């Protein structure tokens, strides 16, 4: 499924989608950035509640297809701007990390 298609589904919303055509191939959940760097695979959707600017660098370097901010977490405008410039897709949801994973497992089947 493409990132921009996920953003259309109820429970999810686009924050910025500079590379909305990227495919989601898997899912990784985590807030400790080194774990994410070490364990997330390229093209995963990364679910986190961390929203500082380092998240954008980690997303870029680990090549995930999008960052999904769970629990209604919203990054600051300056971070959204950076993501847009760096080609990082950001999606929001008010679901918990677990709820997001459950939804994704239904959707990505």
């Amino acid at each position: 499924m493409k990132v921009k298609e996920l953003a259309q589904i109820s429970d999810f919303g686009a924050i910025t989608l500079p590379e909305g055509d990227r495919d989601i191939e898997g899912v990784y959940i985590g807030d400790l950035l080194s774990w994410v760097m070490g364990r997330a695979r390229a093209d995963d959707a990364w679910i986190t509640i961390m929203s500082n600017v380092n998240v954008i660098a980690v997303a870029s370097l680990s090549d995930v297809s999008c960052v999904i901010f769970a629990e209604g977490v919203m990054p600051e405008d300056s971070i959204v701007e950076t993501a847009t410039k760096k080609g990082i897709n950001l999606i929001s949801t008010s679901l918990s990390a677990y709820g997001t994973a459950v939804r994704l497992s239904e959707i990505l089947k």
Partner: protein
Amino acid sequence: MSEALVFRFDVDGEDFTSAGQASVIVKRNLRQLGIDSEIIRRVSIAMYEGEINMVIHAGGGVAEVRVDEECIEIVLEDHGPGIKDIDKAMQEGYSTAPDEIRSLGFGAGMGLPNMKRHTDSLEIFSTVGVGTKIVMKVYNKVAS
């Protein structure tokens, strides 16, 4: 690519929010050189962890990346406090990072293990009170 290409960066020890910039630039440069994307990913991750370490633990330093046909070499050098027990520092979960760094999502003690896991070789030269030099290599699997 007959001669080695060298990219050099000063890593600012004061500015935690911009940490990672050198890695992002290296990633872009490697992409422009047409290097395999999995190799780029490994280099980027290893370099980013090293860059973050220089910012968190050593007050900044210098990063150099050399690219030739065979190999991508990352050299990180700082004049920070040095690492007393390298074996311990290499263990997953070992960290001396302060709490405010941890609240930003770093300091999980996975940086050096990640650097080892994503590279073909990792050498650490460190002297307490003098500084740390880390040399990492990732071999380009596409031979010419």
